[in-house]
């Protein structure tokens, strides 16, 4: 039993840190550090730099651009990426559709899509949730019916993140209306320029335009765009959703935010005392740091156990990571609000913050504190809500 990383692992970490800090422009990383979003162009630029280094899709099979890394190396890669405030390689491409195509797609699909996905030549988005299929995804109603060689899709998807930037969408659609809930669903790849698709942005409570509704009205998709077997889409979706075992807690992002909180509290004056010297604030900060350390150690336990788990089999402990990871993301944005005090109030959209003549009033990063707090309410809802995670633990770990 040994908590320290090997010399090789430490060198690996240094190497990645160096790449992330020197090759990804500070212009991009600074945005994330200050609580802003990467633009489409930022995201593409960063991912291509990573991809050129083989660092965009290390989780993929080696033959399709992945790396033959240990779980610990994957963990280090993710943590350093987050600590350096590098935009994560687009998850729809890299942890969702890419691995599904690599695992279940045809050779033609692999050749056509994978390299482009890794390089963000195609921007993918997700067509899973529907207005009446949220936590209960299996009750989805969008249909795809066979017409000659093609599939014709009708229905509506929602919560499609960054759909406005996307070129392609991967869709779960019901292909056998007679089958039981999880059965009869297929996994289809759809070019967003196909006629019959309408994308409507939904403004979220942080003021951003991050999600969309997508309407499908007789959208004709060539038969070759079906992934794997017909009516087996639920299996691929489960594979996709269970894929991100250790990254789900986003501990590195929360760590970076907590560091930033400390920095800002050192700069913030409360009369003639710095906020960081307020004992009440120090206790709250220390308390959050403890919780984060406990989560980090738990994540390391999960990473270490990965060697012993069957490849691809989800560890129910990842539900613990999801629950606590989302709670601490939320807690850290709330503490950031505490730092800002009344200066959470002014609202400036990201364009004004970046390009306005004058910075918003108050401490640095004040203008992004409340939007981040509002936005982070989502993390306990999406990706399997924390209630769903508790249900998983009740069954899988406690045997109820």
């Amino acid at each position: 039993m040994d908590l320290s990383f090997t010399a090789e692992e430490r060198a690996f970490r240094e190497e990645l840190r160096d790449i992330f800090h020197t090759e990804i422009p500070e212009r991009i990383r600074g945005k994330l550090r200050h609580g802003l979003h990467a633009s489409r162009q930022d995201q593409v630029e960063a991912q291509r730099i990573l991809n050129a280094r083989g660092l965009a899709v290390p989780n993929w099979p080696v033959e399709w651009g992945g790396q033959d890394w240990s779980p610990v190396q994957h963990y280090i890669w993710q943590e350093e990426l987050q600590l350096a405030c590098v935009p994560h390689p687009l998850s729809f491409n890299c942890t969702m559709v890419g691995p599904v195509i690599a695992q279940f797609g045809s050779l033609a699909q692999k050749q056509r899509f994978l390299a482009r996905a890794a390089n963000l030549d195609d921007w993918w988005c997700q067509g899973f949730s529907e207005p009446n299929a949220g936590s209960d995804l299996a009750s989805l109603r969008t249909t795809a019916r066979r017409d000659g060689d093609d599939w014709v899709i009708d229905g509506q998807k929602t919560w499609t993140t960054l759909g406005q930037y996307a070129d392609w969408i991967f869709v779960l659609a019901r292909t056998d209306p007679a089958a039981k809930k999880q059965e009869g669903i297929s996994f289809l790849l759809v070019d967003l320029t196909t006629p019959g698709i309408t994308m409507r942005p939904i403004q979220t409570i942080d003021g951003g335009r991050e999600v969309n509704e997508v309407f499908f009205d007789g959208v004709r998709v060539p038969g070759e765009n079906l992934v794997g077997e017909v009516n087996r889409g639920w299996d691929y979706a489960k594979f996709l959703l269970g894929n991100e075992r250790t990254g789900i807690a986003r501990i590195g992002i929360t760590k970076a935010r907590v560091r930033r909180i400390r920095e800002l509290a050192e700069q913030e004056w409360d009369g003639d005392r710095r906020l960081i010297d307020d004992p009440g604030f120090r206790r709250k900060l220390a308390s959050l740091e403890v919780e984060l350390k406990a989560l980090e150690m738990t994540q390391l336990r999960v990473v270490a156990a990965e060697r012993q788990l069957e490849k691809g089999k989800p560890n129910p402990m990842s539900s613990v990571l999801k629950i606590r990871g989302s709670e601490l993301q939320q807690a850290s944005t709330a503490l950031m609000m505490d730092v800002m005090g009344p200066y959470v109030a002014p609202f400036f959209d990201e364009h004004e913050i970046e390009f306005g003549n004058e910075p918003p009033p108050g401490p640095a990063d004040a203008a992004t504190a409340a939007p981040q707090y509002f936005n982070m309410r989502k993390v306990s809802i999406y990706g399997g809500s924390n209630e769903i995670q508790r249900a998983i633990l009740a069954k899988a770990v406690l045997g109820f």
Partner: protein
Amino acid sequence: MDFDLSDDQRLLKDSVDRLMAETYGFEQRRAHMAQPDGWSRGSWAQFAELGLLGVTLPEAQGGFGGGLVEAMLVADAFGRSLVVEPYFAHAVLCAGLLRHAAEASVQDEMLPVLAAGESLFAFAHHERAARHCLSHVETTARLGEAGFVLEGRKSLVLHGDCADRLIVSARLSGGMRETNGIALFLVDAAATERRGYATQDGLRAAEITLDGVIAEVVLGLDAWPGLSRAVDEASAFLCAEAVGAMDALLALTVEYMKTRRQFGRAIGEFQVLQHRAVDMQVQLELARSMALYATMMAADPDEETRSRAISAARVQIGRSLRHVSEEAIQLHGGIGMTMEYRAGHYLKRLAMIEKSFGDTEAHLDRLAAMGTAW
């Protein structure tokens, strides 16, 4: 001991509720916010007409003749409807400041103007390094030939962007956080430099620079007692507004839970979610109790007694609103994250209330420093 409303109070409540029902639906509110000032002059005129702008002012000065209970009823209704007009800045803060910190002759002159809503008042007080300390004033006032000359920067001035007159705090003497030496002046807003902006909850505010501005009227040269009382009353208003918002949000959530179906049944049938809603109800009831307490104690002229009660209320309400609003979003799921639905707007307003005039931590610190005795 009696928590009942008088007949007059009930009438007031009914008329405010009716006004809200008729003019302040979700889409109507959106339309109000789309107007040039970011709020509706039409609604403002209706508030004036109903007497709401002077609800706590004496009838002799054009007011409605009510007290803090009447203000609470307005707050509750406005909280439910998420009113964006400058009511709090004008009819709560500035009315209270004039009442408690101004000479009688100034009151006679100004209160009717305020109650009529003809001239819009805002309170220019907060400064950059104040955080939650109400007595933090670095802006200076010195007596020049043409009267008092003000120098300094005021920040987060609620509805300062569109105000006609500003009540400005400035220091005549003392250290930057001393309660002694703070004076209040009335200033023509046009004489100042202003940078207006929207706030997270859809209100408006401004940064204001006073660069040798001459005060129009001296409200009071030893203004702390009145200032502190007016702000405590304003806190009581915020408490009641938060309770109105929480109550509406809980009702919205429960209704959603009864209709939204997942896994073949209404999500409100899941025991876990029912109990979560119950915990919201418990927090709401505690908040409601403390909002009543704040309302009834805010008139206490003894600063320590009053401040203790107000801070206690703010602590409870700060905790309750955090719990209720976060849980409401969680129980709604994705829909709660969108601007197209009411729930998120409550979350935003409640979060901003928590940061107004001292956050929960600051009020708890104030209580802890006092030593409690009740």
